[in-house]
């Protein structure tokens, strides 16, 4: 690429990027507009007020504190269980030959083909008959086994040289010590990549929690926000919805901006092509 071409490309990139960010910035602007000023909505900068009134209103009108807590519990809970499950399953697929391996492999493939959200109807009846409706556990259940994670780990483990394992065994290590000291360190990039992907997917999940949760004791942030946008008799309270939207997305955005490099890099390292 020669100089002029490169500058032109950068310029195009910048213009598109600005466009891509407008929705977010405009929402931020709206979150600081007076809810009682009828002109605030009809022009860009009218009715701006340097107060957190809208945020306070949004925070009060839905139980955001418990939505936050629920979301964190659900997301972390899913991730911890997933990590244990995918490590074990990935190791079994990578390092063992056994009868029925193909059948089990197909079972895992099924989840890749048919994501949980396509199964909300039947899964809902399952959760209902288990008596788990309106619990955080119900939100987690369909996700604790992860085919994607299992295959990532399998691929990672397969790339670990056998000699390392054999050396460890010669030193008298048991299988779990081999897994812990030889395999897991090698899989750290894959695990952290998986963690970021899993976190963002389940932080953003909506349809399944919408179906199985009823009350603030189990509802995550996404469902809480949707309650806020359900305007009833009163008409749209855009400034408050905008504030509520920011309440939900702020932690995600901050996390993303801090871990941006890791996110992209771990994606690249995970060897997912």
């Amino acid at each position, binding site marked *: 690429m020669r100089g002029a071409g490169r500058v032109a490309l950068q310029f195009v990139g910048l213009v598109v990027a600005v466009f891509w960010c407008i929705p977010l910035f405009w929402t931020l602007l709206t979150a600081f507009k007076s809810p009682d000023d*009828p002109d605030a909505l009809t022009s860009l900068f009218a009715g701006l007020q340097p107060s957190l009134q809208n945020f306070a209103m949004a925070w009060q009108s839905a139980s955001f504190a418990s939505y936050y807590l629920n979301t964190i519990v659900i997301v972390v809970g899913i991730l911890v269980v997933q990590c244990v499950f995918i490590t074990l399953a990935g190791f079994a697929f990578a390092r063992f030959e056994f009868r029925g391996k193909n059948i089990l492999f197909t079972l895992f493939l099924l989840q890749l083909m048919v994501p949980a959200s396509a199964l909300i109807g039947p899964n809902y009846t399952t959760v*209902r008959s288990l008596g788990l409706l309106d619990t955080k556990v119900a939100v987690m259940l369909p996700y604790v086994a992860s085919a994607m994670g299992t295959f990532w780990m399998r691929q990672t483990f397969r790339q670990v040289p056998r000699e390392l394992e054999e050396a460890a065994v010669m030193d008298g290590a048991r299988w779990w010590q081999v897994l812990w000291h030889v395999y897991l360190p090698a899989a750290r990039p894959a695990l952290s990549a998986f963690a970021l992907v899993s976190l963002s997917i389940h932080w953003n999940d909506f349809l399944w929690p919408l179906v199985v949760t009823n009350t603030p004791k189990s509802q995550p942030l996404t469902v809480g926000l949707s309650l806020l946008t359900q305007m009833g008799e009163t008409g749209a309270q855009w400034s408050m919805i905008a504030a509520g939207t920011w309440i939900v997305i702020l932690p995600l955005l901050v996390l993303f901006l801090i871990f941006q490099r890791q996110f992209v890099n771990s994606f690249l390292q995970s060897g997912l092509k």
Partner: protein
Amino acid sequence: MGIKRATWRAVALSAATVVALAGCGGGATAPANQAGNTAGGGGTQGGGTVTNLTFDFPVAVSGPIAQKVQALVQAFNDSHPNIKVTANFTGDYTSTMTKVQTAFKAGSPPDVAVLLSTDLFTLKDMGAIVPVDDLASQAGATDWLQSFYPAFMKNSQADGKTWSIPFQRSTLVLYYNKDLFQKAGISQPPQTWDELVADAQKLTKPDGSQWGLEIPTSGLTYWEFQPFAIENGKNVVGDAANKVYFDDPKVVEALQFFVDLPNKYKVEPKGLINWATAPTDFTTGKAAMIYHSSGSLANILQQAKFNVGVAFLPKKEQFGTPTGGGNLYIFKTTPEKEKAALTFAQWLTSPDNAAKWSMETGYIAVTPKAYDTQAMKDYLAKTPQGAVARDQLQYADKELATHEGQQVQQILSTACQEALTGKKTPEQALKDAQQKADQLLSKYSS
């Protein structure tokens, strides 16, 4: 299978309840019930047992409403030491209904819930709710059941029984911008369809910066269309819960006018008008008139910087509007809980509380007695607009409610939208809708 077990449980439960009700329906009080009464009263056993009630409440967006409900519940609990009500806020009406159905199937319905009055048949068909008459006659509260506005009872009764209690009810009214009317030289709000068109045309600017009229058409389109059918002399639904009159010539005529407003007379924006944005369009002066719920009054008065007028919806053959909004439902639980729930419902709809709720929210107070309270008189002296919806009640008719209610409503909504967006003629759209609804309702005998 979970479904089967839950259904069996429901069947067993309803059978038990039917037996219990039959036992006490004939005036003879069943012994089981007596035990329930004393336990509920908390008099003899254990000196003050507390009955816990869960109260599912649809709170849409506004935070203040939730606080008002909490305050009401708190006041009730303070004055009734034997009953403890816990309020759950469950989103809008639709999601509240979804949650209630779910919880019922799982065997844990709420004890009391505010749901749309039109959900009556769905809840009744599920066997989830108890008729209020029997409970009321036991409690000696039959006068209380007679005290509501008849228009609201149309959506509360079925098969000769009362299944729910009017609580937060509304009608559609016409909001108009008095300042813009003055500017256009119009002295009073439109009284008839013809005047509506003429006034709206005067108030519409060709560049689209100001519309004469906005009738919301998103979401509950069927409800926003219903006034036109009623005003034209034929409501889309009658007394039977398995029959609708979508393709009646008068209804077709009404839909034609509804469609002509934006398309032929060009006094409304084309396409669907969002329910939630119409009030904002009105208060920012972009729409000179809107049809909206009487429940939006407080909000509109707060935001508008001009003189707001409220009027009856313009008539064709007659004035008319459907009622709307939510009723209190008492769920099948235990006799003592049902009795406590009735006490709670009576307290919520007492003249003072009904008046208070009406003034705080803009819903119509559900009993004429509420309008005799001093507080209400003072309020109406200050805000005369608040009386319009009540006065319009004499012309109000039933909101579309049938078996499979939500699906039938959706069918009519879709038909209205198809006609509005030019996909079908009103006649064709309603004919197809009638066919679909008939097919759905054919499974029901009454």
